[in-house]
């Protein structure tokens, strides 16, 4: 008896069982491997470490994936920042009427989920004379502009000292040379620290797979901007970098019916944005936090 089941044999058997169980548990995520995640995507390197060839392959894959999931041919580009360009944005609060057309344009341009009505822009209805964002109402639904109110559209301020970038544990979000804070959606782990760190509530989380009918999908997409984000990652305004890096104006600016928005290159002394900064009374939100935003507000008078 003792020959067959020696203490040693029992310990060996128990150890092997435990080891096998631990191994099975460690491998458990693989059993949950879904079609959403290809091996290539799983093994993909950080954006900044990708060579042009690797990025080219990723883009081919992403386009095929978009076609399969959303039933439409899309063009996904990875436009580099332009030399000598540093973006800035300003908004004239004297003329904004709170119509939310900017939020609507953002919703369409950036391929947001249709059912949630998501947008990178949140327009706050504010009491005149107050700058307390916590008392701004983003859910107003009455004719605008309302008496005694003014309207404060808030989106990512592309801070030069961005709290969201600092808190990311995996460096999935960073500041580009042209001033845009971007997210590599393929690197983001969805911890939402950045969302909590942003003093402007500018980041959004994809709780579900975004649903967009093929005919409404914007096929002009960028890897770091408006390609359809996977579930479980954080997303944000990129000043429409797929447009602006090609020289075009952001979608929210073109949609604004009152011309409240001014966009341009801060390094160009003749740009409209520079004129506003030099000639208008300009302020930034929560200046005391030292975030150094690139999004400015001004009044006409």
């Amino acid at each position, binding site marked *: 008896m003792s020959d067959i089941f020696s203490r040693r044999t029992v310990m060996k058997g128990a150890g092997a069982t435990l080891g096998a169980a631990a191994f099975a548990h460690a491998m458990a995520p693989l059993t949950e491997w879904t079609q959403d995640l290809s091996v290539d995507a799983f093994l993909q390197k950080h954006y900044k470490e990708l060579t042009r060839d690797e990025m080219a392959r990723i883009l081919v894959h992403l386009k095929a994936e978009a076609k399969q999931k959303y039933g439409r041919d899309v063009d996904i580009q990875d436009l580099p920042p332009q030399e000598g360009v540093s973006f800035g944005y300003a908004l004239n609060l004297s003329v904004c009427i709170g119509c*939310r057309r900017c939020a609507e344009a953002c919703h369409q341009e950036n391929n947001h989920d249709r059912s949630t009505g998501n947008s990178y822009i949140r327009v706050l209805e504010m009491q005149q004379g107050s700058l307390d964002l916590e008392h701004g109402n983003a859910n107003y639904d009455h004719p605008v502009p309302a008496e005694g109110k003014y309207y404060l559209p808030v989106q990512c301020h592309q801070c030069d000292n961005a709290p969201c970038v600092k808190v990311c544990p995996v460096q999935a979000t960073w500041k580009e040379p042209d001033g845009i804070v971007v997210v590599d959606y393929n690197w983001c782990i969805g911890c939402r620290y950045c969302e909590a760190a942003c003093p402007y509530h500018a980041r959004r989380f994809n709780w579900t797979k975004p649903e967009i009918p093929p005919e409404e999908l914007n096929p002009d997409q960028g890897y770091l901007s408006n390609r359809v984000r996977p579930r479980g990652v954080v997303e944000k305004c990129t000043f429409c970098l797929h447009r602006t890096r090609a*020289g075009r104006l952001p979608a929210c600016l073109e949609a604004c019916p009152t011309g409240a928005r001014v966009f341009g290159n801060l390094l160009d002394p003749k*740009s409209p944005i520079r004129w506003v900064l030099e000639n208008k009374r300009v302020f930034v939100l929560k200046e005391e936090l030292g975030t150094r935003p690139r999004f400015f507000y001004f009044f006409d008078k």
Partner: protein
Amino acid sequence: MRPAFAAVLLAFGGCGKDQPARFQPPPGAPTGKETLHQPAKLTSVESDQKDALGRPLRVACESCHSLRETKPMPSRPEELKEFHQGLQFRHGELACTSCHQASQPRSLHLATGEPLPMPEAVTLCAQCHGPQYRDFKAGAHGGMTGYWDLSKGDRTRNHCVSCHDPHSPKYAGGHPVMPPRHPSAQGEPDTKEPQHHE
């Protein structure tokens, strides 16, 4: 010779056809132009009719005025007839003839009396609205579409009349688009956006 050399360079440089179409400004690209939007209001009037596709039908000024003489300018908007009947006027204490030529109501005149064609109305508006004109010239009033970078493409600036009806220039508001998804929360000043938006 030179294209062949470039092709060889491209081949060895790894810039094959499967490369992403990175933006490259075309060499010697023409500099983009900034043009002024020409609102239909300056050359046509509303007819209250709809076309076959249900769009509001506008009638070009020339439809009538090329066939018959324009009558002299009336003293008050209420005296206008036919297509111009019912014109709402809310623009300070101005008279019709402050901007229109009394004998030729289809064209404008500056404060100096100098005639001004309709499409150039910006100059007329600028006589009184100096600060707005200053901001407009700097690109900070009125909005635009197209390219911020004129070396990449064209840009269209809005005309004063694109947004402001010269006879009733205050910008009209309206009901906002993108209604809130949780109407129960509406109107409460303290409510944040619903959870799943965050």
